[in-house]
């Protein structure tokens, strides 16, 4: 917030505030009967009620639960998915395998697979898929219900410039780090695209799971074999996201602590 140039002036105020304005500030008396929020596990000094309501941890409990569940589910989905891929480690229909795919006929390494054999891989994949989807719905549902989406969604007007600045800083085109905000535009873009990849995975997965019952969905992807390509490409994108995520988390280890404890209320 240090000295934002003009474009920032028009922006939405820093994320937690929009929440605070409608809910707590104008009607303190309304908030009076409300008990302390259920997730107030650490409250050494009780701040004024109104501001307590308004303030949320950097990583609220629901986000942390969804995050760590997703670590588990995504690992199981990827491992069992690679087990399934091993049964036909090629892309394209029989007699028409795609020449651009460099790994035709090369199965993924056995140690990356979960399930032991095709039937086991399928069982894991179709069992965990439900939890993966429910967790995603819980994550998005929570964000919309709580207003958390305001500080987590990439909003072009706020985040386009905000997203270029850290890039410029990393590329040493800018001397100063971007003004501290909850997330930079780049982070918002990265986290949102991971959610988008997840949605593409679910849809392309359904398209190859039920290519007749859901043939409109399969057709939307350009047919069964292309939907299968999309499904594998989605895995590659998610793996790239996770790799980048782990690298950046290794550079900022405090973020892991926040994703466990929730961090401070701001």
């Amino acid at each position, binding site marked *: 917030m240090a000295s934002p140039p003009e474009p920032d002036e028009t922006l939405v105020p820093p994320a937690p505030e929009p929440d605070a304005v409608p809910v707590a500030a104008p009607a303190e008396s309304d908030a009076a009967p409300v008990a302390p929020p259920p997730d107030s*596990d650490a409250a050494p000094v009780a701040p004024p009620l109104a501001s307590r309501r308004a303030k949320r941890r950097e990583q609220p409990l629901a986000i942390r*639960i969804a995050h760590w569940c997703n670590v588990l589910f995504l690992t199981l989905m990827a491992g069992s998915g690679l087990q399934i891929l091993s049964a036909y480690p090629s892309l394209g*229909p*029989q007699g028409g395998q795609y020449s651009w795919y460099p790994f035709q006929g090369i199965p993924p390494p056995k140690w990356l697979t979960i399930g032991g054999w095709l039937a086991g891989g399928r069982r894991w994949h*179709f069992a965990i898929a439900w939890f993966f989807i429910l967790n995603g719905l819980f994550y998005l549902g929570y964000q919309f219900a709580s207003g958390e989406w305001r500080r987590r969604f990439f909003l072009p007007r706020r985040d386009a410039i905000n997203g270029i600045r850290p890039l410029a800083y990393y590329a040493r085109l800018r001397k100063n780090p971007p003004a501290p905000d909850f997330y930079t535009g780049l982070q918002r873009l990265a986290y949102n695209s991971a959610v988008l990849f997840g949605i593409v995975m679910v849809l392309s997965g359904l398209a190859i799971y039920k290519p*007749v019952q859901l043939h409109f969905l399969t057709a939307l992807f350009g047919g069964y074999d292309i939907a299968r390509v999309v499904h594998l490409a989605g895995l590659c994108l998610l793996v790239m996201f996770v790799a980048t995520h782990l690298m950046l988390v290794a550079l900022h280890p405090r973020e892991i602590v926040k994703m466990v404890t*929730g961090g401070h209320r701001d």
Partner: protein
Amino acid sequence: MTKLVSRRKFLTGATALSLLAGCESRPAGAFLNLMRGWNERVEGLLFSPNRVAPELPESAATDEEDFPVYFISTAMPQAPANWSLKVGGLVDHPMVLTLDELHAMPSTEMRVRHHCVEGWSAVAAWRGVRLSEVARRVGIDPRVRYVEFRSFDAGYWSGWDLASAMHPQTLLAYGMNDHPLTAEHGAPLRLYSAVKLGYKNVKYLTEVNFLPNKVGGYWEDQGYEWFGGV
């Protein structure tokens, strides 16, 4: 704080559990069985008897030498000399049908995409008699809910739900791509359906039984999905 640590412990434990589960530990096995039952119900509910697989043009057909061939016998299964199809179970008029009798029934042809459980697809045209037509002729009992298909391929078999078996794209097929079925693809008669995965489509048919109770199948008993719809 203690709550948080215990949650972390819980998560670590859950991860460890699930990794162990890869080696078929008991709780994971129970969980997977539970989810398999659930998925089977969902597959049944998702199945629509009226939804048909898109029919494809001749240009989409896979070269026949590229269409994979599977059987479980050690050598290519050969039809017995006096081959015929037994149709029985809970039916009013059990029948024994010869190939000629099947040819005399109304025939249907469809060119559709074949979906193998392994993940590949291929396209061929199939010609034969709708199973629903045969069911009509034998007169199935109202208690019938399932259909069992048996073969002369070393006892390969499969059990189906009645709804999928009565689908208009479920055929007792004797022809493939403008020629009689070859031994590779299940001669003299095979089950072919656009709404099931490949392993449900029993080749080298010998028997069709309409049953009130659910029966398994060669792959189904080893852990593959029983419904196996697409």
